[in-house]
Every structure is written in C-alpha cells, then in structure tokens.
C-alpha cells in the first residue's frame, strides 16, 4: 500500500518517537509539579519543546500555547478573540466590534466555530476565492470594517494546497484595527512561515501533520507589538498563560518539539524534493490521461500537493479501484456531497466528485510516484472504457 495522503496525517518520525518514549513511564512527571525532580524534568522538556515549536515559526517561546490539536487552537483563536473583543469600542469609539471575516475554502475547524458565533449573533462574512483558489485582496479589503474583530485566512489549503497571501491579508486586517488569525497547519514545516515577517496575531499548528504525534497542537498568540487577547475555552488551573488549562500532554509536546526541529532543519531540502516529485506525478498523469485538470493554482501551492479532476468518471468508483494507493478523494467520506473547497473554485459537482488529492511526504519515493501515476491512469482509462458514453 502506497501512502500518498500526507495532508491527512503523517507517520511519527522514528527520531520523534525516540524523543517521546522516556516521557511515558520513566520521566512521567506532571509539568505543573513544581516541588520535585519528576515535575522539573517534565517542565524542562515542555519548555524545550515550546522553544523548538516557536523557532519553527519565528515566534518567542512564551507566544506558544499548547493545545490538543489544531481544531482546539482554531476554536481558541476564533471564539477566544471574538469574546475578548466583545463590546470593545472601535477606533471611532462608537459601535462594538461584532464582525468576523473568513474565507469559503477554510477547514471546517474554522468554518464551524464561525458558524457557531454567527448563530450567537456575530456578523460573519465568508469571502469567495477565484478559480485558482486564491483570496481576492480587494474583496478582503472591502469586507473589513471598523466593526471587524478578527480576520481568519488559512495559510495553505488542506485539499488543494493553495497558499494564500497572508502578509497582505494581515496588513489589511490591521489597517482597520482587526486582529488576524491563520490556520497554518498545512504550511508549517513545509514552506517558510514566520509570524513576525507575516505579522499575524494568532496561528494554529498541529504536530501530526509534521511527523509528530496526534493529539497535540499549538496556538501562537502574539504578545509583542500589538495587544491581542483571547478568552480561554477551557478553565481549570490556569495552565498555558491561563489560555488552556489542563495537565500538559508531556510526551506529545516533546514529540511536537522534536518534529518541529526536524522539519525546520530539513525544510529547504524536503520542499525541493517534494516539489520535484509533485512535478513527476503531474507529468506521469498528464502523459497518459486526457481530460485531467489541476484544481487550484500550481504556482502558489504547497510543494507536496497535487489535486486533479478527471472528466467522465465517477469519483467513488475511482477511489474504490485504487486498492493499493492511499489517496483522498473529493468523494471520500461524504459520498454524495462534493468538497466545499472544489465547489468554491467553480467546479461542477461531477468534476468535484471525480477528484483526487495526492499528498507527497517525507517517505515518498520516485518509484511510488511512478507506480501511482501509472495505476491512476490505468484505472481512469478502464472506468472510461466502461462508461456508456464510450462506444465499443
């Protein structure tokens, strides 16, 4: 079985696992136990990991709040910032900041918290993207008002890998006094991402997309240069600067730190390698398959992502036929409902359903890419030959 679904999750790197293991049974202390060596060892390890995660994104250590993952980080940033600004007066000193702005291609972990806030009375603007999957900055500028509390734009999309103009978007938000959050889950460790250079206020991260363990993530919360705040979602002990109470997942956090350090060290070489493999896959598919389109911009894109649609075949039958390649499909999970991201690009429902997402990762080889390209081409040809639209 060939694994080409690295946007969904990645295997834990052996070096990461090795770093984590002592913290289960040997150095099992509670990082909040300040009275003895077990607690100190755990606390030291957590702070070392915090530094490693911070360095990956150009942040200060104290800016990093550990969470259970990116969904929690997104919820904390969006609901937390909204609550922090509730009732706050605008620069004009009149109406409250009761407006939020986001983008239609965001992950559900951003859209659903926004939806909940909308139900609670917040005014939420969800901006469209163009056919390449990119946010229109003029439209963003037009949407942000003196009432806007927070703008949330993902750094790179989980389905089509399209990288948004985060620096420009953040500047537009700040120009009207809004705070800026980005879901940086897919981009962190894959492309350079620096919270200072981009001037973002909140950024969500997760370990399992960068060869770390599942169940641990982080929210970057700016402490310098702009007074931003979030109201905690989870209370009970005041851990993590009071933003996220609960005993810290020490082995997970240690693994996250090690994963971040490795990702940073290997980023330039790994990004170039993934980009070359992506090109090899695209060339291999295009050589044998007509009626194939790439979904989303190829230029502004994560190096390891390819998302393509095929004309004239059923997406579910395609996925079922790919018995030895683990990829994600526009038809996966929710059989009849096409991907909201692909529909946002203007694809027809059929095209959106007949799509495949390839996620190339650290362990992917050229042989695997060649096999996948040949297999997908064969299956597409077989399904088309089976179609009543094709004679003979």
């Amino acid at each position, binding site marked *: 079985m060939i694994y080409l679904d690295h946007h969904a999750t990645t295997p834990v790197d052996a070096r990461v696992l090795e770093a984590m293991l002592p913290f289960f049974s040997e150095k099992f202390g509670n990082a909040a136990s300040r009275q003895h060596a077990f607690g100190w060892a755990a606390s030291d390890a957590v702070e070392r990991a915090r530094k490693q995660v911070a360095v990956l994104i150009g942040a200060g250590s104290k800016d990093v709040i550990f969470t259970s993952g990116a969904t929690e980080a997104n919820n904390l940033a969006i609901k937390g910032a909204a609550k922090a600004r509730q009732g706050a007066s605008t620069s004009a000193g009149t109406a409250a900041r009761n407006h939020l702005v986001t983008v239609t291609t965001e992950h559900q972990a951003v859209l659903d918290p926004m939806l909940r806030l909308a139900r609670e009375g917040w005014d939420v603007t969800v901006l469209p993207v163009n056919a390449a999957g990119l946010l229109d900055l003029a439209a963003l500028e037009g949407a942000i008002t003196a009432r806007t509390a927070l703008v949330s734009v993902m750094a790179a999309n989980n389905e089509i890998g399209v990288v948004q103009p985060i620096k420009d978007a953040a500047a537009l938000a700040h120009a009207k006094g809004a705070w800026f959050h980005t879901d940086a889950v897919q981009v962190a460790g894959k492309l350079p991402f620096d919270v200072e250079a981009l001037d973002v206020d909140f950024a969500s991260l997760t370990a399992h997309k960068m060869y770390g363990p599942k169940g641990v993530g982080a929210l970057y919360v700016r402490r310098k240069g702009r007074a931003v705040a979030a109201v905690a979602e989870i209370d009970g002990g005041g851990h993590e600067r009071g933003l996220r109470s609960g005993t810290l997942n020490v082995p997970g956090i240690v693994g996250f730190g090690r994963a971040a350090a490795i990702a940073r060290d290997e980023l330039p070489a790994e990004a170039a390698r993934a980009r070359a493999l992506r090109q090899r896959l695209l060339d291999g598919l295009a050589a044998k398959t007509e009626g194939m389109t790439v979904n989303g911009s190829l230029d502004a894109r994560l190096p390891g992502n390819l998302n393509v649609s095929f004309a004239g075949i*059923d997406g579910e039958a395609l996925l*079922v036929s790919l*018995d030895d390649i683990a990829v994600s499909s526009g038809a996966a999970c929710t059989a009849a409902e096409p991907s909201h991201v692909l529909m946002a690009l203007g694809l027809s429902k059929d095209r959106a359903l007949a799509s495949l997402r390839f996620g190339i990762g650290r362990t992917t080889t050229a042989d695997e890419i060649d096999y996948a390209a040949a297999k997908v081409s064969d299956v597409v040809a*077989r399904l088309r030959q089976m179609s*009543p639209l094709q004679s003979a």
Partner: protein
Amino acid sequence: MPDGRYSAEVLSRVREPQRVGTLPAGPGVGAGESGTLAHGTLIRISVRVDKDRVVEARFKAFGCSAAIASASLVAEWLEHTPLVEAAGLTPERVVQRLHLAPEREDVARMAVAAALGAIANAAEATSEK
C-alpha cells in the same frame, strides 16, 4: 478507502470487471438502458438471444461501485440463461447477492430494468424480421 462499505464481490467486480462492452447490432441482439448521466448513474446492458435463451450479455456503466457491480452481475446472470428464467430477475436478488446498503438499492433496480429492457428489445428485433 471506502472498502468497508462494500462486499468483497462488489470490490472484485469493480477492480476486475468482466463482460464490459456493447454487442454489435445483429440478429437477436437487443439493448436496454436505465438511469441518466445527470443523476450520476447510467447502465446499459446488451444481450444476444438465440431461440429461447440469452447466449451473450455485456454491460456498460457510469456510476458508483454499486452500479458497476450490479450491471456486471446482471450481465453474468443473463448469459446462458433461458428467457423464462431471465424474466424472473429482481433487484432484490442483486441487492442480496452483492450485500448492497439500502441507499444503493436504486442502482440494482436500474441494472435489472436495463437487463429486462434489453431482452424485450431483442425479442422485438427478432419478431420484426
């Protein structure tokens, strides 16, 4: 991979399909069709009838795995089957054999409708001569 939603027979019929194609027009040959592309499923069955039995059957299908497997199963059942037996083909038999989920029963109905249509069409073609 959505394998868990399908029986082994559905998977093998999709991955290694048999009897794909359209029989060329000729004596005793008839075709039946059911479904529409607009609704995401289109099944076409063609048969060649000789005297009182189906001697050859082929299918074409656009749609999900269940549709492909249903069309393939129906084509297999029809081949070498006496017409009196073929008339007794029901969607329930397809659903039972392939262990289709209730929400996929419609494609079994389409496969059977296309098959019965093909036999009727073959009979018409024969009687017109």
